[in-house]
């Protein structure tokens, strides 16, 4: 197993003085290729903070985040933006689709801005895997919540990122749809050998995951390994 992501003694504090919040306390973490990892925990425990640190949207107060052997904490904002573009796929709670682009054009935009492009065949495969082939000509406003999240996953998986980060991707879905989306995420993680980290409130969804971490007050603990 190759390590894709490694956090070394990472801490993150917000504010200072009596307003100081330690959102993440001295955290060690490792994720391997092909792993689907869930992070659960109460509100305000630091889950999103963890995810944004990994995604290079925040810099840690101390410690290092190493993605694919590159220390992203040492990078400039511009370099990190490039890493986000080419190595990380984000899936957000609310849909991260662009309202004025059809499904096919959402993909085309990625094709324009990303380095590693997908062949037509790979593209078709992705459409088929996610069951969104028939939605190509539709605008996000004409899709159901589940369809939107499936397209969002397709965008996140476009041109095989090293890691997919999902912050409560199923929060806006009913449980049937939520299971479906998790199922998909699992299948794609396995078949594409990417690493996915999913933050969720819903403990029933953790059955799909290889590892489940529990976050309380900025402390991350491995809870179970399937």
């Amino acid at each position: 197993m190759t390590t894709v992501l490694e956090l070394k003694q990472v801490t993150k504090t917000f504010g200072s003085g009596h307003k100081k919040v330690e959102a993440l306390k001295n955290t060690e973490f490792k994720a391997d290729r092909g792993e689907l990892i869930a992070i659960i925990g109460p509100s305000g425990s630091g889950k999103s903070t963890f995810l944004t640190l990994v995604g290079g949207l925040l810099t840690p107060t101390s410690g290092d985040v190493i993605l694919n052997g590159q220390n992203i904490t040492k990078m400039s904002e511009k370099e990190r933006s490039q890493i986000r573009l080419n190595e990380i796929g984000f899936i957000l709670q609310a849909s991260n689709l662009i309202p004025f682009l059809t499904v096919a054009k959402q993909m085309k935009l990625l094709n324009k801005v990303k380095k590693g492009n997908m062949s037509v065949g790979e593209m078709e495969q992705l459409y088929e895997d996610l069951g969104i082939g028939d939605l190509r000509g539709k605008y996000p406003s004409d899709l159901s919540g589940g369809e939107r999240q499936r397209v969002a996953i397709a965008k996140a998986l476009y041109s095989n990122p090293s890691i997919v980060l999902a912050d409560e991707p199923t929060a806006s879905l009913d449980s049937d749809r939520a299971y479906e989306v998790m199922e998909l995420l699992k299948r794609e993680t396995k078949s594409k050998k990417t690493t996915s980290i999913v933050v969720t409130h819903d403990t029933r969804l953790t059955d799909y995951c290889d590892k489940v971490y529990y976050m309380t007050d900025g402390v991350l603990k491995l809870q179970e390994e399937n």
Partner: protein
Amino acid sequence: MFLAWNEIKKNKLRFVLITGVLMLVAYLVFFLSGLATGLKDLNRESVDKWKASAIILTEESDKSLYQSSMFLDQVEEVNADETAVIGQLNAIAGNGSQKKNVSLFGIRKEEFLMPEVTEGKPFAGENEVIADDSLKEEGFSLGDELSLSSSEEKLTIVGFTDKARFNAAPVLYADLETFHMVKYGEGADANNDRINGIVIRNGEGDVIQDDALQVIEIEDFIQNLPGYTEQNMTLTFMIYFLFAISAVIVAIFLYVLTVQKISMFGVMKAQGISSFYLSKSVIAQTFLLAAIGVIIGMALTLTTGAFLPAAVPVSFDLPTMLIYGAVLIAVAIAGALFSVLTIVRIDPLKAIGG
């Protein structure tokens, strides 16, 4: 361009609106510039026709041709490639049915002020004149006998020439003798050596020695025609003001659109799409809208121009229009920079914030 164009296609109405506003502003700018050119021509076209470098008037006249008075033989003291004498007066000319304010130029047939005749023939004898062809539209024609407000003399139109208006009045060209008859009546013989000015081409070094005379560059002379500079400045000021207005309109409109899309831009930045790419898209969008607005505005202006009655002094100068069009587009893009600043400042973390 990809984002810009697709957004326009999806949200047609809002972009049609902004393009419409830009088009109206462009229309107004082009029309005012046409009016400015037209009014300029109205004042200066006969002077431009001289293709002269300067005019010599008396110091006392304060650059007014009408107020200047000198003697014919003073032309001998002038040091220039070519010289031409001119006498000028204003009068009301009538042919029995129509009356019109005109400017009478007394010139010598063999000098360069003599216009080319486009219809009829040059003046040959006493009391014959060549008239500006704008008089044709006013109901004057070849062979008309003109009575003048200030004189007993009757003038006959024997020919027409084009582009000959001076300070908004059509010009009648006559020889010096006729001019003197009109100006001095009974006293014509006693004053037959009087002229108003000397027009020169390529004066050298000290053009004149006489302290009572003044050499005035042609452009300077034109700027001092009554009302010319004031009129010009008013219109130019209005045009510049419109540029500022369109910058502000575009800035506000795009800013509102950008603010609406802040979370979308944030998500895109989180996904690693650069501020540069997003800014480029906004600029491209502005360019498209402004260019379309300007082109339609220009087409509309030219169409309107074709249907306007001849009495409206508009004349469209394509190079000027192209420059103003380019300025409008540039100014719109300057307005968009405000939105670019907003995009650069968006924090992707806020968009993702969970």
